[in-house]
């Protein structure tokens, strides 16, 4: 088990390093380009040359990468071209905001997805199962930007219940979080529900559940004590991997509702070619994705006794 953990973490670090090399090569391979992006398209060739010299861009590529990586690890991501401040200073508050948005969403997705999935999987083929399955297909078919438009039209335009933007200009306001969370939940919970349903339906077909039912255990006990324990192993992985999807979703939702979060920052950085900010954002996104994947792998192994004890 320990060896497995070490190997998984090793793979994670290796993946991060390869990603960082790819990112570095994509954005900083051509140092002339970096100078143009930092100093602007109308800067003189002399000033670009001086800037490149000052910032060590005349060194060989591997040296530059090594220094970049070193700075990165200690949290020095360079200075944002657009915001004219250190990247870390821009990034951290944004990450906090996105953590709130994603955390609330994930909690609701987990509760809704598991509840509906279990209810549907318990009675495969029943009316409830059909309704839940069809609903989850429909909700996952509506892209986030479309559901954002539709929900905004309903709750802001027709019902006038909720604010249409989530800029949080006067401090943190939970009401402004409602629509973004609703959009993300709507898109994401269906997948969790479907996966939970499949897992639950599979468990309900097993012999040990049939035995439990036949020996006269109350149905509630069969579900809670026997079925759920095995049925929830697969959804655990699905929910962890959902974080990867959420990172995509927050870009759209934060852009739509002008929420000052990480996704909107990444988009802004990309549209403005703010390379140091792109690098930092991308590495954070990949770190979160890879870390959750590692945790889900380890968790899956831990939860599944057939793997744990072999």
């Amino acid at each position, binding site marked *: 088990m320990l060896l497995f953990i070490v190997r998984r973490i090793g*793979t994670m670090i290796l*993946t991060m390093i*390869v*990603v960082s090399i*790819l*990112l570095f090569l*994509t*954005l900083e391979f051509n140092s002339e380009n970096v100078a143009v992006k930092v100093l602007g398209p109308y800067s003189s060739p002399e000033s670009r040359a001086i800037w490149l010299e000052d910032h060590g861009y005349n060194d060989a590529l591997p040296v530059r990468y090594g220094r970049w990586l070193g700075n990165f690890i200690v949290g020095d991501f360079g200075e944002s071209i657009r915001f004219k401040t250190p990247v870390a200073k821009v990034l951290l508050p944004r990450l906090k905001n996105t953590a709130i948005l994603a955390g609330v969403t994930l909690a609701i997705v987990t509760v809704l997805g598991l509840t509906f999935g279990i209810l549907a999987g318990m009675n495969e083929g029943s009316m409830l199962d059909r309704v839940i*399955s*069809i609903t989850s*297909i*429909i909700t*996952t*078919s*509506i*892209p*986030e*930007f*479309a*559901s954002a*438009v*539709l929900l*905004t*039209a309903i709750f*802001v*335009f027709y019902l006038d219940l909720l604010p*249409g933007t989530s800029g949080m200009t006067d401090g943190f306001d939970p009401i402004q979080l409602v629509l973004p969370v609703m959009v993300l939940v709507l898109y994401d919970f269906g997948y969790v529900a479907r996966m939970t349903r499949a897992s639950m339906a599979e468990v309900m077909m097993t012999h040990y559940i049939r035995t439990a039912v036949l020996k006269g255990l109350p149905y509630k006990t069969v579900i809670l004590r026997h079925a759920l324990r095995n049925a929830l192993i697969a959804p655990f992985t699905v929910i962890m991997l959902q974080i*990867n*999807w959420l*990172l*995509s*979703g927050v*870009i*759209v939702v934060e*852009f*739509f509702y002008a929420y000052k979060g990480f996704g909107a920052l*990444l*988009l802004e950085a*990309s*549209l403005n*070619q703010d390379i140091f900010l*792109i690098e930092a*954002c*991308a590495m954070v*996104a*990949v770190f*979160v*994705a*890879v870390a959750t*994947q590692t945790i889900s792998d380890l968790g899956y192994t831990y939860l599944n006794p057939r793997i744990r004890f072999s």
Partner: protein
Amino acid sequence: MSDITAGIPRKEPAIIQWLKAFALIRESIVGMIGAGIVIFWVSVAILADVLAPFPPNSTLRPLAFPGQELVLPAGQKLANQPVEDICAQIYENKSPTSTYNCGTFWLGTDHIGRDILSRIIYGSRTVLFYAPLATLAAYIVGIVMGLAAGYLRGWADDVLSFVSNVILSFPVLVLYVIIIATVGASGLNIVIAIVFASAPGIMRIVRGLVLDLRNREYVFAAQTRGEGIWRIMLVEILPNARGPLIVDSCVRIGYVTITIGVLGFLGLGLPPPDPDWGGMINETRQMAMTFPHMTVFPCFAISSLVLGFNLLADGLREVSLRD
């Protein structure tokens, strides 16, 4: 010889086998609804020239609500033709010039006066051209990678699996945004970005299927006959992996449709003015509070198409699990 082979049905061409696997959809109601939606949009795209009441890019009347009519005085031009030639005359008494009714904005117009219905109709061409194209390209790359990794094993497998793990570790949209922002937005670049981001996922599925199929007897038989590795991979193994791949391709084409929409919505999609649904939503969403028709109808369009693909996939999955 003929007596021995008489009872064995002739092997059908590969394309017929794939089509037959696809035709099983008629056994599933959900799948048939999905197929119906997809066929509807495909017909709309093909017949766009006939169906669209107005040219998609011409500015006719800004901010018209659904149901308003386009009434033009004589002498004006519509799509480079005098209105007298193409529109119905409505009255000609009071004013010196007569007036013509050139049609109804069934879904209204956008902020610069383009007909929403016509743009949705022509936009279906854009999405139904790029989504299948990108998915097909991603499948070709992914299948080749997956066959190589699963059948050859060894270092090819290690390298391909690691590369795909690295790419899949990116949150998809982060990857798209970075790629498109770096190389610029164009139809070709969108296809390339989609191939880059989707091929590893396809490769994983194909690899898993091949790992199972490579130990079947007919593969050993082919190896004994001395068939080349590409022939074994493409002719012996690939057709037997078609079931899961057909289901996956329907789901994936839905995701690609969403992706193209999202990129358009984020302003990273196809360059204007040609209509694409995501771009239409992005251009008009600032006015969605006052003129909801501008954004809501393209949303219905893209959601219904994705729903069609997803229902189709669900139906195919249901049918394939049945036997």
